[in-house]
């Protein structure tokens, strides 16, 4: 199995570890070797946690020797966006400002949950500074390259998380999503990515960007792996003030249920740009695979995006106000001026955006009374080139960095759960499609994704590098 570990799913690795056909230590050594071999080309890892990973692997192997349950992710290597607290090291969040911050006293809750499920943390992953971006062209740590085409962006802000999984370095990773930071890189890198319902997974120990929008979530190359990781992280956490009090609602047992009884529709209007051929074809392929023809128009998504933009700017600016005053020179200049502008946003704009959010939430609830899952493109195009300045959007050249989230921002704005599925298109650059559901209905998303994967309409093959 050793030679094939880069292609193996988390489920396959855990099964092999549990039946002792390979040890967790061997799996870990293999993952560390792939980091050494591939990271110089990809620049997706910011720190490699060799000693910690070896110790965790040893603990899993010991549990197996003692015939104790090592967990559903026994011996599975994973890595996290560089904004999750990792015990013993400072949390950089893609910045240099925090290089001298005190080392984290404990792991983020999500890391603890995955460790408890048997997974092994091997490193931290590159991102846009403070998660403010869609391209992971980090001013301090360099760009992350897309494993499917090294000249192209991995997307952002969780670009390292998507690239590590797409390259087969780890079968699982964690990222965060404020306005599309899981879905955009998942689309560009051709992997599954879940932005759960706001409040569903604990953010304790994650360095936040815009607190009323931020969620954490997993990346994987199979739906089952994504579901297993999601299930492992569910549960109330009193340490995160927005953590839901609802009990866990496992989804791994939903994958084979099929879609009978689910009402599925395609997002129309704003989500259809005649020039976005790849995105249109991707949505059409998913609709065809599901035999869906109904179209639903979301209530003014352009203004939802506008409101999300204002709230993000204001919350982000406020969050960093102290450092903007005391050490402005340490920010990426691009990040700095946007954060300053956000800090200056008048309350009249921000409160109007928050009022619009209330209205939009009610309107979306009306839609979800008649539709269970909505299909929409994740990105307007496949991965852009690193450094690319513009993309085409509704007949005009628009700045790429600001507009890669055109389809993701209006959705996450009201905390909806969204699963990016990578559309199967051999010999072409990947592109993803969003499956969107009502709050806390992740189960419906996994049922749809499970069927699509079984029918081979979606897949996430390891990139050839």
């Amino acid at each position, binding site marked *: 199995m050793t030679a094939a570990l880069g292609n193996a799913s988390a489920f396959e690795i855990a099964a092999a570890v549990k039946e002792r056909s390979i040890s967790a230590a061997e799996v870990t050594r293999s993952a560390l070797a792939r980091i050494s071999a591939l990271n110089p080309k990809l620049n997706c890892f910011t720190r490699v946690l060799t000693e910690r990973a070896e110790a965790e692997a040893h603990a899993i192997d010991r549990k197996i020797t003692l015939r104790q349950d090592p967990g559903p992710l026994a011996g599975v290597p994973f890595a996290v966006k560089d904004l999750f607290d990792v015990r013993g090291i400072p949390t950089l969040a893609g910045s240099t400002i925090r290089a001298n911050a005190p080392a984290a006293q404990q792991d983020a809750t999500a890391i603890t949950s995955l460790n408890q499920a048997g997974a092994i943390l091997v490193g931290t992953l590159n991102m846009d500074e403070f998660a403010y971006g869609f391209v992971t062209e980090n001013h301090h740590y360099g760009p992350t390259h897309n494993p499917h085409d090294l000249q192209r962006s991995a997307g952002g802000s969780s670009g390292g998380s998507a690239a590590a999984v797409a390259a087969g370095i780890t079968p699982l990773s964690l990222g965060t999503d404020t306005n599309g930071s899981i879905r955009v890189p998942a689309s560009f890198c051709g992997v599954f990515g879940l932005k759960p319902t706001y409040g569903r997974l604990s953010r304790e120990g994650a360095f936040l960007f815009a607190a009323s929008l931020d969620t954490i979530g997993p990346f994987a190359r199979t739906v089952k792996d994504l579901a297993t990781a999601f299930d492992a992280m569910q549960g109330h956490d009193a340490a995160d003030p927005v953590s839901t009090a609802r009990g866990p609602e496992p989804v791994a047992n939903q994958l084979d249920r099929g879609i009978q009884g689910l009402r599925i529709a395609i997002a129309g209007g704003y989500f259809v740009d005649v020039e976005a051929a790849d995105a249109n074809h991707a949505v059409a392929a998913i609709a065809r695979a599901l035999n869906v023809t109904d179209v639903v128009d979301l209530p003014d998504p352009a203004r939802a995006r506008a409101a999300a933009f*204002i709230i993000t700017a204001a919350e982000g600016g406020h969050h960093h106000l102290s450092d903007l*005053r005391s050490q402005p020179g340490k920010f990426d200049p691009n990040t700095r001026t946007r954060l*300053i502008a956000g800090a*200056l946003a008048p309350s009249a704009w921000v409160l109007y955006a928050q009022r619009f*959010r209330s209205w939009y939430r009610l309107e979306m609830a009306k839609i979800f009374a008649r539709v269970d899952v909505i299909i929409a493109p994740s990105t307007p195009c496949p991965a852009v080139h690193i450094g690319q300045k513009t993309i085409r959007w509704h007949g005009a050249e628009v700045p790429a960095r600001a507009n890669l989230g055109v389809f993701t921002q209006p959705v996450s704005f009201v905390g909806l759960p969204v699963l990016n599925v990578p559309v199967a298109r051999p010999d072409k650059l990947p592109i993803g499609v969003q499956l969107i559901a009502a709050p806390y209905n992740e189960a419906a998303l996994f049922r749809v994704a499970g069927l699509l994967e079984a029918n081979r309409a979606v897949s996430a093959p390891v990139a050839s590098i």
Partner: protein
Amino acid sequence: LSDPAQLRVREFVDAGARMIELPIREEDLLRVVEDVARIEAVAKFLMQFELDQNIQPAPAFEP
């Protein structure tokens, strides 16, 4: 910064930055003005949408 529209935003930026005690570097000024102007344009677009007066700002912690 000679365009009247930019000068208008600059006045706002100068006053706002003083109010929240946020010094702005000279080399950042133009970009900050552009970024604030962008937020203003987005806000104006948003506020063309007329909301019922009874609609309150969204609570932070509810999806």
